[in-house]
């Protein structure tokens, strides 16, 4: 009796497990495409007489193991349609199957995808006034279903981005700078801009949608918001096609035979979706993943102990930075501490904190304080003042500026105002919060008091109109990491016109900095089409930003990646990380 009862329960458990497994969530397999013989050879292949096909003998040898690279994502993409996502991880997942005109390779040079030639003034594809750019498209490029990729696909993509019926992530820069997109023929795209727009190469058509698949959906539903292509893009133009995306579990890609370069080396790419960075670390350690992504500096010592894992640092354009609140009573935003209006005080702050030591201690010496926001790029100002740690200089500058400790309370003051600054950053990133504590001590040593006042991500980034603490000036020093339109250096956050007000709450110059010379340079670079002149302009911008300490680099925030040594040819780019997935390989 006892055994019967026990076995009954056990059987129930096993049967339940089997039944539920069988009834598991339906995966979303992509409908098999009709197998078509490739009609054209890839253009880059020399056109040779086809070699005589060897007669295929039936072979008894077992089929070769498929070549697979596995990677882990600790944030799940929200969509596989670029138009609907601003997520960095979604961008990675999309790079694998949906290239636009070009990628930027590991040297940050254009690697042509749908474009046949990169437009420059020299080859005449950029008009003299810089407002018209012509892009010849690759004639051999085709969608995975065999349809050619044409200029009409790009025009359709442009229309869909701007159509208000689609809940797209961002309409920029198409709504502000693009006047029209035209096709002079099936394989020539003409972009007309309202004014010269310098960062066009990194912001325009980084993806393209198949018109022949999606226009019928748009016409039927009135929007692409619910299109199946957003999650399971069965018709693609990249090296791989999405075979299956199971939410919170994985994405599986398989080789696209119709890719314009020919079939990629790998058969499949697997993305494991894990809940957090710790789960990724366990997977790296266990060999369950070949590529580790967006690793934390705190993981460096553990990774360096791993035998089969190589750590790579990739320039991403991001820099962890300090921004100062120079808003005054005249601005709509809350004014910063009056001491910050004095450049000597800002310089003193820069000298007072040993950022090199912070990088050494908290970031294991894997990075360093950047000299400008364009560190490691040609736009970086080579003679920038690095403000190396010098507490004596900091004390001297503060004394000269009239900030002295007149009441012997350990904090400097002037005209009855104590030099106590509010220092804000986002909650939850440990290394930032540790930096705050260390910097607080350094600043206290020179008589500057610090009050830490952090906010969660969702509150911290709120706009001026939404009362965001940074946008409305509720800080003196704020810390976060940001990047220009990398690898393009464009930034407009230093423009006087970007200071948000009640009437114009959209501005993103949350620091209230209005420097006429800086303003002029930032405006000039945005319309400058001569690359060399643009570099000079950025050197000037870097000089103004660092001399005046409008901005201060805390650490150069390159991305950390790992790869298992069994993988080959993986060349991560900071702009388009998976640009060369077509040639990735694995050893036996």
């Amino acid at each position, binding site marked *: 009796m006892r055994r019967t009862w026990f076995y009954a329960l056990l059987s129930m458990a096993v049967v339940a*497990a089997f039944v*539920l497994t069988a009834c598991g969530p339906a995966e979303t397999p992509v409908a098999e495409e009709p197998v078509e013989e490739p009609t054209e050879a890839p253009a880059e292949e020399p056109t040779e007489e086809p070699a005589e096909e060897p007669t295929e003998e039936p072979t008894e040898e077992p089929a070769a193991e498929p070549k697979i690279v596995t990677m882990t994502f600790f944030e799940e993409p929200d969509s596989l349609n670029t138009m609907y996502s601003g997520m960095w991880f979604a961008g990675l997942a999309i790079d694998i199957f949906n290239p636009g005109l070009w990628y930027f390779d590991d040297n940050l040079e254009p690697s042509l995808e749908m474009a046949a030639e990169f437009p420059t003034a020299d080859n005449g594809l950029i008009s003299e006034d810089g407002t018209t750019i012509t892009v010849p498209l690759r004639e051999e490029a085709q969608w995975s279903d065999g349809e050619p990729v044409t200029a009409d696909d790009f025009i359709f993509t442009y229309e869909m981005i701007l159509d*208000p019926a689609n809940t797209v992530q961002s309409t920029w820069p198409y709504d502000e700078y693009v006047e029209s997109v035209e096709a002079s023929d099936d394989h020539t795209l003409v972009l007309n801009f309202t004014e010269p727009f310098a960062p066009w190469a990194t912001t325009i058509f980084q993806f393209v949608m198949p018109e022949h698949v999606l226009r019928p959906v748009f016409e039927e539903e009135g929007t692409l918001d619910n299109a199946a292509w957003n999650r399971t893009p069965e018709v693609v133009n990249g090296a791989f096609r999405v075979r299956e995306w199971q939410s*919170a579990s994985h994405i599986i890609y398989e080789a696209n035979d119709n890719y314009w370069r020919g079939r990629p080396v790998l058969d499949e790419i697997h993305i494991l979706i*894990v809940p957090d960075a710790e789960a990724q670390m366990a997977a790296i350690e266990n060999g369950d993943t070949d590529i580790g992504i967006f690793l934390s500096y705190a993981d460096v010592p553990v990774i360096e102990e791993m035998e089969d894992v190589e750590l790579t640092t990739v320039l991403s354009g991001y820099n962890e930075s300090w921004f100062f609140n120079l808003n005054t009573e005249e601005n709509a935003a809350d004014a910063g501490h009056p001491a910050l209006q004095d450049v000597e005080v800002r310089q003193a702050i820069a000298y007072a904190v040993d950022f090199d030591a912070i990088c050494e201690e908290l970031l294991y010496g894997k990075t360093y304080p950047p000299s400008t926001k364009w560190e490691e790029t040609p736009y970086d100002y080579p003679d920038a003042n690095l403000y190396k740690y010098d507490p004596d200089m900091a004390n001297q500058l503060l004394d000269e500026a009239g900030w002295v400790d007149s009441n012997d309370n350990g904090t400097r003051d002037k005209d009855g105002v104590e030099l106590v600054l509010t220092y804000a950053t986002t909650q939850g990133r440990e290394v930032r919060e540790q930096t705050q504590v260390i910097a607080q001590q350094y600043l206290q040593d020179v008589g500057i008091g610090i009050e830490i006042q952090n906010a969660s991500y969702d509150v911290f980034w709120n706009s001026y109109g939404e009362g965001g603490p940074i946008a409305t000036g509720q800080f003196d020093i704020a810390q976060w990491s940001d990047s220009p339109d990398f690898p393009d250096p464009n930034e407009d956050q230093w423009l006087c016109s970007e200071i948000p007000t009640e009437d114009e709450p*959209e501005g993103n110059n949350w620091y209230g900095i209005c420097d006429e010379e800086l303003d002029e340079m930032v405006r000039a670079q945005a319309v400058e089409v001569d690359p060399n002149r643009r570099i000079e302009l950025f050197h000037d911008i870097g000089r103004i930003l660092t001399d005046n300490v409008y901005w201060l680099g805390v650490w150069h925030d390159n991305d950390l990646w790992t790869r298992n040594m069994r993988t080959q040819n993986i060349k991560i780019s900071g702009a388009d990380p998976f640009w060369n997935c077509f040639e990735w390989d694995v050893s036996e």
Partner: protein
Amino acid sequence: MTRYVVRRLLQAIPQLFIISVVLFVLANTMGDPLASFGGRRRIRSEDRARLRRRLGLDKPVMVQYVIWLVGNDWMQVDVDGDGVADQRGTRRGVLRGDFGTSFMEGRPVLEIIRERLGNTLLLMLTAEAVILIFSLAIGMYSALRQYSVLDYVFTTFSFVGYSMPIFWLALLLMYLFAVNFKRWGLPHFPTVGMYDLAKGKTVGQVLWHMALPVATISIMSIANYSRFVRSQMLEVINQDYIRTAHAKGLPKRMVVLEHALKNASLPLVTLVGLDLPLLVSGAVVTESIFAWPGMGRLFWDAAKDTDVPVLMGILLIISTLVVIFQIITDVAYTYLDPRIRYD
């Protein structure tokens, strides 16, 4: 009885309405859903405003609630942001089975929940079976061999198991049986996922991958339930009718299983019964650590991203199940204990 059930079901309507209002308001105070949209970069203010309008977040919370409840296909909405309502809405509302669309994934909430529910039930039902088998076995043994060496061992392990935080236990099991076992060259369990993608979703793969999550969920509950069974059994085996059964010459096995265990497990059945609706909600911590694609992880992700439609979908389903199971439990009492009458 029928009148009672109907009355309880009618009472459940305002109950669920109040619960939904409270949950909706709380979910909307958790943060800004747009915070996760920009990824590593700030979203342009113009885009934020457009997205807010498109997702309906520009309206007051109570208006959002009404739309969530009854939809907006009966009213005109402003699609292009020019201040003029120019198009009929498309939402049908929860009352007509439309739980809305996830802010993050842009897919219907019910579709997302349906995808995860099977995985969670697979994990939780297996864990529940393991819990029942082990807690009954351990509890009964400890009661029948009170103060034996094994009873002390079980008691000690029960207290240790019960006092361990589940996240710590999960990480401990992962690092021991997955990471370190592999390092030591021993057969090892996988760290994350539901199956090895290269091998496919076979029964063996799923069972292999669920071993550690099931162990994590089970250990704490076994510690708890086995103590409960032990104390219930100790109480029952000292009753007169058990002594009578022994005196009648019944075999010990029959006395224990037929008379003692049956009576001792009645409160356990009630306990398990009340746990059933919570099975649907999954195990937030365990699913998150082992990357099990279930409801617990969905809830955690939705909470992290302030994906209000998904959060509300999960919470409303759980609330409804709790209310329904309460009614079922109340009704079950009348069958278990004939003295109880509701009419």
